[in-house]
């Protein structure tokens, strides 16, 4: 098997490491601006896709397939994001005679549509949030009100093709229903080219709990201990952990049973994740299924000792799952993941791409750093702002939090602004330490701060900053010759290559 990894950044690095560990051949793909990215050098072969914008590179199906042909790949691992949940891509991979490392294209299609996934869950006997299927666009105002009254308030109007909160409206009473449905429809039409919407009751103070599964081609599905992903900023996960302090053994079993029932019903193959809302009474509701590897998969690996990417590849080779189900459901210790985004928490989490001048990742006992960048690399403006994930494992949750704090302080990223100061602040919160939070917790806590800086200095720190600034200025003013302009290696090489080309003409 020779695997083409149709992705970039930390997840490409993660999958390529597994390929090396398993002695499987590998092919990296990259866009122009990723020429110097680490994943290019961690593969046996590397093929350029095209210019930086995703539509011309990582999202360009024909170019990815042409790269597979050029490097004689026999399988494709999509990672997450980009083409990972695109059924057209999965189908095209198989049609080209390659193995797609993931579920069947039809399963991606079914589980990718929110109402179709809901229907599959209901059929499998898995509880879903009370709601409706796609609303008929010809409903009268009275009929519409009857439907919303039936679901109950508060409720969400959601786009069938939705994602990222677009085409989504919250309605608290029957008064605003008609106009809210109309505006959700038009927003969904603009964003996704599909104006259909459905209704879903709002589960208040709910946690986001998800269950990892692995399914093989022989009909076996293994569920894992849950992940807790409630620490989110604007629906984007920031800190995840496993296990969840809110899940009892009984609920864990019930979640696992539900995950197996639904996965088996759709003959799920590969790694997948079922997302649930968990309310304060321990009742859970299926939300959606992600038919791919998730960003936060390492926390599951840390508490189970099972390598999920190895298993994705073994399953794709037709192997039978031989994981002991009890082991997968019984966490050893506690693991937490922090996502390190290149965003400025002191400026409303403004994206902050740029050149990394120096980098030292945290390490030592219990720490895993899944990164995709290094010193000298210019973080491009075109892609997601996540540059790495720090995962801390310890025998218990309290020790894992302490260890995460230590690791984040150890992280030195020169030149680039990241969310690390905000991550440290979250770790310090009493509610976080007590495990008292729901999916709205972080947004509420951030609103309460009212923009206060995450790097407010103590007197000692302020003194240190004065000393450091003066000394840095002292050294740089001592260098008589003007400093050479700082350019990334990518542009330097490109510049050199261009001059060469000009000379040859």
């Amino acid at each position, binding site marked *: 098997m020779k695997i083409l990894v149709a992705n970039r950044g930390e997840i490409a690095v993660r999958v390529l490491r597994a390929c090396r560990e398993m002695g499987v051949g590998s092919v990296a793909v990259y866009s122009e601006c990723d020429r110097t990215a680490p994943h290019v050098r961690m593969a046996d072969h590397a093929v350029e896709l095209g210019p930086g914008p995703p539509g011309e590179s990582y999202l360009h199906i024909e170019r990815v397939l042409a790269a597979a042909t050029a490097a004689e790949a026999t399988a494709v691992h999509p990672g997450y994001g980009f083409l990972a949940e695109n059924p057209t891509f999965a189908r095209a991979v198989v049609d080209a005679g390659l193995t797609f490392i993931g579920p069947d294209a039809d399963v991606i299609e079914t589980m990718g549509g929110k109402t179709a996934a809901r229907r599959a869950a209901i059929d499998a006997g898995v509880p879903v949030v009370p709601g409706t299927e796609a609303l008929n666009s010809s409903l009268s105002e009275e009929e519409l009100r009857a439907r919303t009254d039936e679901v109950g308030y508060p409720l969400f109007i959601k786009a069938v093709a939705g994602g990222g909160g677009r085409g989504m409206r919250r309605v608290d009473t029957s008064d605003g229903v008609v106009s809210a449905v109309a505006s959700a429809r038009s927003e969904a039409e603009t964003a996704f080219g599909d104006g259909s919407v459905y209704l879903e009751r709002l589960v208040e103070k709910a946690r986001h709990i998800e269950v990892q599964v692995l399914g093989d081609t022989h009909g076996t599905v293994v569920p894992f201990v849950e992940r807790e992903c409630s620490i989110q900023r604007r629906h984007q996960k920031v800190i995840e952990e496993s296990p969840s302090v809110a899940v009892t053994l009984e609920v864990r079993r019930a979640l696992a049973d539900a995950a197996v029932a639904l996965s088996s019903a759709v003959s799920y193959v590969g790694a997948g994740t079922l997302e649930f809302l968990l309310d304060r009474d321990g009742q859970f509701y299926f939300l959606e299924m992600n038919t791919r590897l998730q960003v936060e998969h390492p926390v599951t690996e840390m508490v189970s000792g099972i390598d999920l990417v190895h298993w994705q590849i073994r399953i794709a080779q037709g192997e039978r799952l031989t994981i002991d189900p009890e082991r997968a459901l019984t966490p050893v210790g506690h693991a937490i993941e922090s996502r390190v985004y290149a965003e400025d928490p002191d400026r409303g989490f403004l994206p902050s791409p740029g050149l990394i*001048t120096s980098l030292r990742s945290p390490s030592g006992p219990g720490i895993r750093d899944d990164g995709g960048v290094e010193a000298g690399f210019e973080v491009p403006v075109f892609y997601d702002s996540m540059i790495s994930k720090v995962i801390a494992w310890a025998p218990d949750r309290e020790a894992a939090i302490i260890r995460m704090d230590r690791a984040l302080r150890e992280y030195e990223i020169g030149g680039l602004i990241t969310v690390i100061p905000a991550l440290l602040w979250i770790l310090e919160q009493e509610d976080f330490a007590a495990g008292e939070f729901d999916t709205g917790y972080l947004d509420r806590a951030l609103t309460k701060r009212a923009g206060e800086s995450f790097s407010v200095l103590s007197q000692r720190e302020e003194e240190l900053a004065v000393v450091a600034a*003066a000394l840095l*200025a002292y050294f740089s003013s001592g260098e008589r010759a003007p400093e050479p302009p700082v350019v990334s290696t990518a542009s330097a090489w490109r510049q050199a290559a261009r001059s060469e080309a000009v000379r040859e003409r």
Partner: protein
Amino acid sequence: MSSATESVRGRARFEVEVAGRSRQVEVTPAEDGRLAVTWVDPVTAIHVTRVADVTRLASGALSLVLGDSGHASHEITGHETAPGALLLGFDGRRVQVRVADQRRRKSAAAAPVEGEAPVTAPMPGKVVRVLAAIGDTVEEGQGLAVVEAMKMENEVPSPAAGIVSDVRVTDGDSVDAGAVLLVVRTDAEGDD
């Protein structure tokens, strides 16, 4: 890699602004190769002296051992984000500071033009939409352009009320951080 001893020379003075407070800081080399950093604290008016054993690491970061603070050991990254603006990183914190060399202070940032407020890109990215045209009357805080980076769209607000006097970008343009997108005339009266 250059250590402190290599670049030891005379004393030098800088104006250092941290946490919105400015102070005159003097760096004086000692005979043992260490550097003394002294200033007057702007709040307490107390004279502060810190003697540092300083080494520049291969990464460009500074390793400091402060002799008069129980040999406190620190590692600090510094990165110039604009002329005279440094982004410091230590112990999980990120701090923007300003440093002006006393001799070069006059040539600091170009003085802003009276009555003109440039609207600049907060980060590098792509202009998705320009929301105002020349001659438009705009309010302070009104969104004038949308810049996209890292899959996120950010509205760039007007820094002041006035009339748009120049639009320097169009949809689809790539811009660097700090690039002027539009200019708002703040002294113009709305008498058209």
